[in-house]
């Protein structure tokens, strides 16, 4: 379980539309919106990957100008990072021939 806190910004006149569209997204829960166009949102997802996908969807909402993250809790993933299970899949230069990053 990963939980993120966000301030989403929209133009004040777009607030109602933005709130409607954001509420329709799965995993997004809105806690409030003010007259300046600030919307407080919490996203819950199974993993940080999934959280990232939800944020992308929020950013694509027409009325949304900016999705600002203010808090993230991912204690379940901390263990995976330490054990190497959360390491990206990349080429490992370390095990390759040394000359690979020399002059070309």
């Amino acid at each position, binding site marked *: *379980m990963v*939980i*993120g*806190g*966000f*301030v989403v*910004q929209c*133009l004040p006149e777009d607030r109602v539309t933005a709130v409607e569209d954001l509420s329709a997204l799965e995993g997004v*829960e809105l*806690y*409030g919106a*003010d007259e*300046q*166009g*600030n919307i*407080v*949102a*919490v996203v*819950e997802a199974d993993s*940080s*990957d999934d959280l*990232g996908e939800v944020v992308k969807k929020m950013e694509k909402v027409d009325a949304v*100008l*900016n999705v*600002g*993250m*203010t*808090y*993230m*809790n*991912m*204690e379940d993933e*901390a*263990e995976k*990072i*330490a*054990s*190497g299970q*959360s*390491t*990206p*899949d*990349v*080429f*490992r*230069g*370390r095990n390759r021939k*040394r000359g*690979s*990053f*020399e*002059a*070309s």
Partner: protein
Amino acid sequence: MVQSRREFLKRTAALSAASYVGMNLPFSGEDLAMAATETVWHRGSCRLCGVGCRVELGVKNGTPVALRGVSQSRTNFGYLCMKGMHFWKVMNHAERLTTPLYRAKKRDKFQPISWDKALDIAAEKFASAVKEHGNDSVAYYGSGQALTEETYFFQKLFRGGLQTNNVEGNPRLCMASAVGGYLTSFGADEPIGGYADIEKAHCFFIIGSNMAEAHPVIFRRVMRRKLDNPNVTVINADPRISLTSRIADIHLQFHPGTDLALLNSMAHVIVKEKLYDKQFLADYTVCKNGKKETVDFAEYEKFLAEYTPEMAAKTMGGKVTPDQIREVARKFATSKGTLSFWTMGLNQRKQGVWANNLVHNLHILTGQLLKEGADSLSLTGQPNACGGVREGGGLCHILPGHRLVEKEPLRNQVEEAWGVPKGRIPPKPGYHTMAMFTALNEKKIKAMWINCTSPVQSLPNCNLYNKGMAQDDTFIVCTDIFPTLTTELAANLILPTAFHFEKTGVYGCTERRSQITRKAIDPPKGAKPEVWIIREWGKMLAAKLKDPVIAQCIKPFEGLEEGYALPKAIWDEYSQKLTKGRDNDLRGATYEVLEQMYDGVQWPAPTKEFALTGGTVKKFVRGMDPMADSHGKNDKPYQFYGPAHPDNKLWVWLRPQADPEEIPDAEYPFYLSTGRIIDHWHTMSMTGRVKELLRANPYSYIEVNPTDAKRMGIKPGDMVEITSRRGTNVMPAKVYEGPIEGMVFAYWHDQHPDRMINKVTKDAYDPGSKEPEFKICACKIKRVSGPKALKPYIV
């Protein structure tokens, strides 16, 4: 009240977000039954750019599990970018270096060795280099990411102990021209104002900076200001349309390197239309044509005569109209507060200092300085380029406290503070960065310490310098937390270090603000804080060289616990003895004070009482800056007491348009420029290991203007070869209305040998600041194939 942990965390998240915008929710922190007994929050700074955002790291059972912004902080008001939100994930990362590694020859495999053995080897190699080849055969190359305590202690040991000024750091590659600009225009390094001007500004002039990606949290403040006040004008001047341009009312797009003409032309309009502040100019300024020649304002006007908007528009490539230049000049001059931002687009240039001077000229002419909402503000790239390297003595020509090496009385002050004999610090500045790596190529440097940076990837024209780093004539120690291209190619000895929040120390960000981060968790077993490494190495050096003065350099720090007491003692020595009476006076900013503040202290802050107010918001202003009062020469409201201008004036410079070192020709018809992307940091050794960040931008691409792409038969995703006189890259094309026609752009983070763009960039540098011209060179491009499946690459 019964709550599930899930509900507790969600409400905590909501409260955190709501607190940033002052929104009241129907529940409060006190209502949250599951009090913060499980997660302990530790305040500190973000690690990944120069903004200085304050964060709190949530630690549960000794493991970092969460991060949140600090809403009371005047840098970020609680906001963080995604990169910042993820930086802590490198802390417990499975690939952290945890044991010293050694190889006698650089083609050998590394073998793990003990700390005792490692420090002994390092001491032996440096001692024998000094004995056999002299003091200047050793060098330190540090980082704007090292803590101030680390940079200060390293340079103390090199200058006071090993008697060499071969002390440099990667800020030479990013901030040196800004330093040169501030010193020559205002007489003192670092900005007069700070971020607090954003919310008061009426006109933003953003030039040579993609702050939306490189400084996203500050950009957010600019955006908020603009959204709340539609009459605020945002002007963006850049050869490339970037995410920053999205909020611009006016975007001026021009050929790289022609902006000196733009800036002089804006001055031309301001002078011709008499939009300058006559009284301000009379009271506080002189005009300079070269350091020794003072000229009158009429002479300056004469110099500007040729920079008509028509001439400048033509020089800039024809996309900007003369009327746009007039409009921009008028808005700049007449707004109630104009705030300029720039970064590497001006600094990483052969004319970097001049470009900085010309922005400062506009502020001086119009009096858009020293008042609310007005400033000429260079954004820093790294979290401690200002605090550690510019202020702490991390460059070859400067000692701690903004003292020049070449001035004997200033050297003597430092020697006295350190208790070392007079004359111990050599009078000659050491090698600047490009000279240092040239000396390495020439085998003049026999032992080098590279701390927290990866020059194999980050130097311009890196193929040339990597040959020197790879040869066995120079013994190289690298201190770092992960393997980098530099540890793999250049190091004989790798020493694993503690990371941010695993040690204690101070970072000084863009706006003269020093902020502490206290140790929150232990480093991985086997990794050590740099301050411990320096001290233990120093002890062995003193013994091997039989030099009591080296021992004297570390004596005040003997026996202190390395997690807190040791860095505190180093900070105390630096702040109390070395900044006393200097323009960056930090005596009030003790650890005790810094720990009380949400967002640190802005210098000058000579006393604790003043530091506890937050320090100096505006330099040089009587009533705001205690040094303007204590060092004032008359009763005028502004006092320019900076060390570089004995006349206590601001200087308006006559600086002509001048070409970059390399401009496109028939053989290399394109401009190449490089920069950052939002998800990555520098050489990606950290952000490339965080999957959320790597996935967002797994490898570099080359941005090609659609008109050029059509002409060259390049389609989106096609593999494109980029070649300059120095090297070649191959990477996918992004066909995009970003760069101006005739220009391509790549980001520089990618470690893959085919996509390491610094093989292509040019190593010409500014003659004053010695900062290389990463931002402009000539190249040719060629489609080599259709799209190819690529995999990201991390060493």
